């Protein structure tokens, strides 16, 4: 396994507030990497730095050995590095199938592909993935009318439709019915093993992330507090303190 995302000494502050300070992490290709930390520890800021929503103050971010810290969001997305949003973003006025079809990987399209209609295979793929996340019955509903959890699943399916190399998930289980969480964990694992997508996940739910991740990082107060396997993190006194201290 080699590292696919390499974050080195990244710092970012908003005005006087330091959100990230000299953070270095690595995401291994083909694995599931977790990022935890109390509220306000700078997790989402780090995500946004990686996918290009704001400039970083210092350090370097590499994706497949290519420096991406100066690129725009869409350029990074076109490299195959995709993210989902903490507050889901879907095209609310369209139905689920349309949402899926728009998410076809445009980066892989030639001009000819772009100006042709969606093929039968595209529809089948959309249906298959909607079934995969359990939204098949709702596929002709306006996506804006779905519940928050369902929208989240739809966004996940859209991301899969896009065939990314790496998928950054911002709190995938937040707002999802607890009874569905086990199913979601299963789907995330299958996305990793069956579709071969490297996952990098921010998660608050310790049970979820400890179950899935093979490598974890813990942030606190904008700094990297600990890293290691889930077991190591679980038993790290500093991590426990950070969480207890934050509450």
């Amino acid at each position, binding site marked *: 396994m080699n590292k696919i995302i390499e974050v080195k000494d990244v710092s970012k502050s908003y005005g006087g507030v330091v959100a990230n300070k000299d953070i270095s992490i690595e995401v291994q290709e083909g694995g599931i990497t977790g990022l935890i930390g109390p509220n306000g520890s700078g997790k989402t800021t780090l995500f946004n730095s990686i996918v290009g929503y704001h400039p970083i103050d210092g350090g370097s971010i590499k994706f497949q050995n290519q420096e991406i810290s100066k690129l*725009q969001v869409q350029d990074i997305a*076109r490299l195959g590095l995709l993210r989902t949003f903490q507050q889901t973003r879907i*095209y609310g006025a369209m139905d689920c199938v349309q949402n899926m079809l*728009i998410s076809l990987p*445009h980066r892989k399209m030639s001009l000819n592909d772009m100006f042709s209609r969606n093929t039968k295979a595209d529809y089948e793929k959309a249906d298959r993935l909607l079934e995969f996340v359990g939204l098949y019955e709702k596929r*002709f509903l306006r996506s804006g009318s779905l519940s928050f959890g369902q929208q989240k699943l739809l966004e996940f399916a859209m991301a899969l439709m896009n065939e990314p190399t790496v998928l950054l998930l911002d709190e995938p289980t937040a707002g999802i019915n607890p009874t569905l969480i086990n199913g979601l964990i299963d789907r995330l694992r299958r996305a990793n093993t069956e579709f071969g997508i490297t996952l990098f996940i921010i998660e608050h739910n310790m049970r979820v992330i400890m179950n899935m991740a093979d490598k974890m990082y813990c942030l606190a107060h904008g700094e990297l507090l600990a890293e290691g396997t889930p077991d190591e993190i679980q038993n790290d006194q500093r991590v426990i303190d950070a969480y207890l201290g934050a509450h």
Partner: protein
Amino acid sequence: MNKTLLYGILIAGTIIAPFILPDYRTQLATMWLMIIVALTWDMTGGQMGYNSLGNIFFYGTGMYVAAVVGISLAYNVADYTNAAGGGIYKFTDGQYFGGIFLGSIAAGLFCAACAVIIGWITFGLRGPYFAIGTLGVAIAAGELVSNWDWVGGGQGIALPVYPGDFNIGKIFFYFLFAGLGCAVFIFVKWLYSTRFGAAMNAIRDDEEKAEAMGIHTLRYKLIAWAMAAFFVGIAGAISAFQLIHFEPLETAYQTINLGIFMVVCVLLGGKGTLWGPVIGAIMFHVFKEVTWNYLLGWQWVALGALIVVTVVYFQDGVMGWLMLKRPEWFGMKVEQKTASAEAVK
């Protein structure tokens, strides 16, 4: 089957209209012009969410490009536009029709190129900035061209009249506009069915999401606007020869005239729909032709009021209203489809 019949009737109506309404040939041609500019405005405005107030730039530029190309087939442009020269300029039939043909193509291509260049600058702008930026481009172009003596300055350019019978000329221009209008309609109908069309809608609904999904938004926006500009440029070229004489500010870059009409047409008919711009353009044009002369100079005030009322109270237009009242006409059978899907399962 029903649809084939509808299209058949429409095409037949288009063909016989100038013959059964001989007094209204010019108005009918102008109606097609409205349909063209409304349809092309909707490509970026309705389908992509980029509301340009400067599409009239392509109309005016198309006029000038076509005129310059048409004249230069026969004469030196600077001599021709220099009114003080007082020379008499005659065009052969070949030069005249060649001028229209080559002028239209040149106008279309030139405008498409302009759209790419201007779009490359302005498409970084979102929402109101884009609207104001494009409006600025149109106004600046009008001012600059009216100071440019090579193309006649503020006087504009006079083109040769149609060689041959006056009435045949009217029919000729009617069919040029009607043909272009049909071509635009077929083109956008096809375009909206492709993946490109879907991407345009994605940009409209949530551009940030579209970017995050790796859609090359700038490229798509440029292509869409260039296509719109291509057709508007050709429409401008035909207008130049139809009107015979045009001025930079009043005719070519008529910002508050046609430039705003096209937006009103689309809003009246329904933004982001295929038929909305067509219906809106016909409604607006008929309304305008019928009432204009009775408003005794207040027509422009009425136009302003119409814009305000449409925008504030009737923004979804006829099609939006119909969709609300008769959703089944638009295949929105959400309940049934879900039910049947569940039944299958």
